[in-house]
């Protein structure tokens, strides 16, 4: 049976991983990511595109306003990889103060799209580390200890 709910993340290395299946061809799901203002954000958000340049090195900027007309933060980033319809990598940073990051905090989002029986299985990986360099500076050997540690601290 198809499960459309986001899968719990494999976040032992502090990245959030969500896998979702969409009843649409890969191209359509991929293209929707290049124009995300139509759907991005929680339900109380109405996003507006401020800038969109979907090519490698190109920038996007999205204003997340409230559906009630209230102002909200601006998020922006740069496209790192655009391999239609397989893979999309871009950076993600809040330009304005935000509960989950201050201006300049850059994170990375990697999307992969797989064709599965006429549907598209998409995996979103949102990494809390800005650059490959900062990730690589971390000891690989510690992966997996995070969960154990969190358990210890919660005990």
């Amino acid at each position, binding site marked *: 049976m198809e499960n459309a709910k986001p899968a719990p993340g494999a976040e032992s290395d502090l990245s959030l991983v969500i896998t979702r299946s969409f009843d649409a061809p890969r191209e*359509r799901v991929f293209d929707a990511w290049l124009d995300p203002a139509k759907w991005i954000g*929680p339900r109380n958000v109405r996003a507006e595109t401020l800038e969109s340049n979907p090519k490698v090195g190109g920038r996007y900027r999205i204003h997340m306003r409230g559906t009630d007309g209230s102002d909200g933060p601006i998020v922006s980033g740069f496209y790192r990889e655009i391999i239609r319809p397989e893979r999309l990598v871009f950076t993600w940073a809040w330009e304005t103060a935000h509960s989950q990051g201050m201006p300049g905090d850059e994170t990375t989002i990697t999307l992969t799209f797989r064709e599965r029986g006429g549907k598209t299985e998409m995996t979103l990986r949102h990494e809390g580390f800005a650059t490959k360099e900062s990730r690589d500076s971390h*000891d690989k050997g510690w992966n997996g200890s995070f969960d154990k*540690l969190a358990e210890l601290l919660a005990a």
Partner: protein
Amino acid sequence: MMTASARIDRTFSALADPTRRAIIQRLASGEATVTELARPFAISLPAISRHLRVLEAAALVRQERDGQFRRCRLDAEGLQSAAEWLDFYRHFWGESLDRLDEHLKSSSSTSRADKTKGRTHGKRKTRARR
């Protein structure tokens, strides 16, 4: 003020060391003095102190003076910011992908819309949080 991702980065850097992870695990079973912490390791007290300063800066360990001793205990704050980051984006992307799903359905051709009508609605649990 340290930013959220800088905090997370610092937490993970601090944990990227086997001695420091062992210290954390030792402290998970109760507080200890620096001397007690140093005992199982083949390293000097100053070396342990350096590790403790890194853990303290990452808000993973707190040190308190107790007479001439320094007592150490765990500080959950360091891992807290990492957990909050995950919670925020799990919710953010969860709802965004629900909306993407609806967007793909509403913008698909009518024949496709007929074909898929009523299939996924009601099957997926609606997220309770707003």
